[in-house]
């Protein structure tokens, strides 16, 4: 014959097992404070695509304009989907960029013409005339000059070079 169930056990209320979130809360609070400290409105406008940008004391805040990235792979087109320089589409291949015979870059010229034509088609009041150039610190100076000359011939008159700010 089975024993009668214990009365004490019957009266005992079973506690729901819970996970202690306190330590995770502490961690989250620290991360949140750190991120709030490094929060920047310009961070939403521009994120660096290269980790070896030149350093400068210039203080001009980032602005959103048509941008190109210059790296050892050539002139690249930054996009929302491709943030890494290894996956960014190539606008100007390195052979064309490094060539000493060509002073201009026909591939870049075609791209810039297309961008301006698109602005006109969309009925934008102001057609793009500012080009943001993000170039690595070790890029030869002649590559920058080629980009400037090509863009100037298309109608761009201001160039914003992305640099890392130092005090």
């Amino acid at each position, binding site marked *: 014959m089975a024993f009668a169930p214990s009365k004490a056990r019957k009266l005992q209320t079973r506690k729901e097992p*819970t996970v202690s*979130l*306190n330590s*995770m*809360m502490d961690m*989250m*609070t620290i*991360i*949140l404070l750190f*991120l*709030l400290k*490094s*929060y*920047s*409105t*310009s*961070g*939403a406008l*521009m*994120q*660096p695509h290269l980790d070896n*940008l*030149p*350093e*400068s*004391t*210039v*203080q*001009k*805040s*980032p*602005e959103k304009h048509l941008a190109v990235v210059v790296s050892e792979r050539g002139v690249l087109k930054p996009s929302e989907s491709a943030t890494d320089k290894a996956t960014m589409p190539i606008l100007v291949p390195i052979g064309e960029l490094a060539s*000493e015979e060509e002073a201009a870059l026909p591939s870049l010229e075609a791209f810039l013409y297309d961008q301006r034509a698109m602005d006109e088609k969309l009925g934008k009041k102001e057609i793009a005339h500012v080009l*943001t150039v993000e*170039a*690595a*610190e*070790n*890029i*030869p*100076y*002649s590559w*920058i*000059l080629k980009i*400037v000359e090509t863009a*100037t011939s298309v109608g761009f*008159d*201001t*160039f*914003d*070079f*992305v*640099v*890392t*700010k130092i005090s």
Partner: protein
Amino acid sequence: MAFKPSQRRKAPDETVEPNITPIMNLMVVLIPMLLSVAQFVQLSLLEYTPPPAEQILDGEGGEGEGGGEVQNLDLLLNIAEGGFEVSVFNETKGDNFKEIPLLPDGTYDFEALHREMLRIKTDIVGPPVRVEEQADTTSQQVSRLEIFKYADANRIKISAQSQLPWQVLVQVLDETRNYRDPETRMPHPLFPLPLLGQIQ
């Protein structure tokens, strides 16, 4: 006679934990959002506006107040393999031409370049002849335009070799753009309008 202490009071107090799940939910949303806009590297923009082609071809000389021709400064900086070469009035020797050799470690002497730029600005260009106020029709902002005795007093032509690393040129632009007043620590323009060229 004192009463016997109550048996109930001896029961341990249960600790009540607040429900932090909603706060956790908020954190989980906030952290990715802040991560996407956080800026771990401080970026800024170095603006370069090349002058129109006709201005380069014609030079910047204009007419002075009395109708006379205004002289040009023609400040030129060559970044050569052996160091900087600074020339004014298109001279290649004498007091208006200075060579700044490389430092013993083989790097460019940016401090000496900055000193030379400051000397040219103070000793050769001098203070502005007059200040004009210009109103921008679109932004309605009024800007002060300083007129110097040389028409191209704000401009510097920079020539460098094709293989010069971009970082060196950025540093040169920093040193030639402005200077800080040693007393007020306020920045003042030196030669803020560069014209980039290449040594052939």
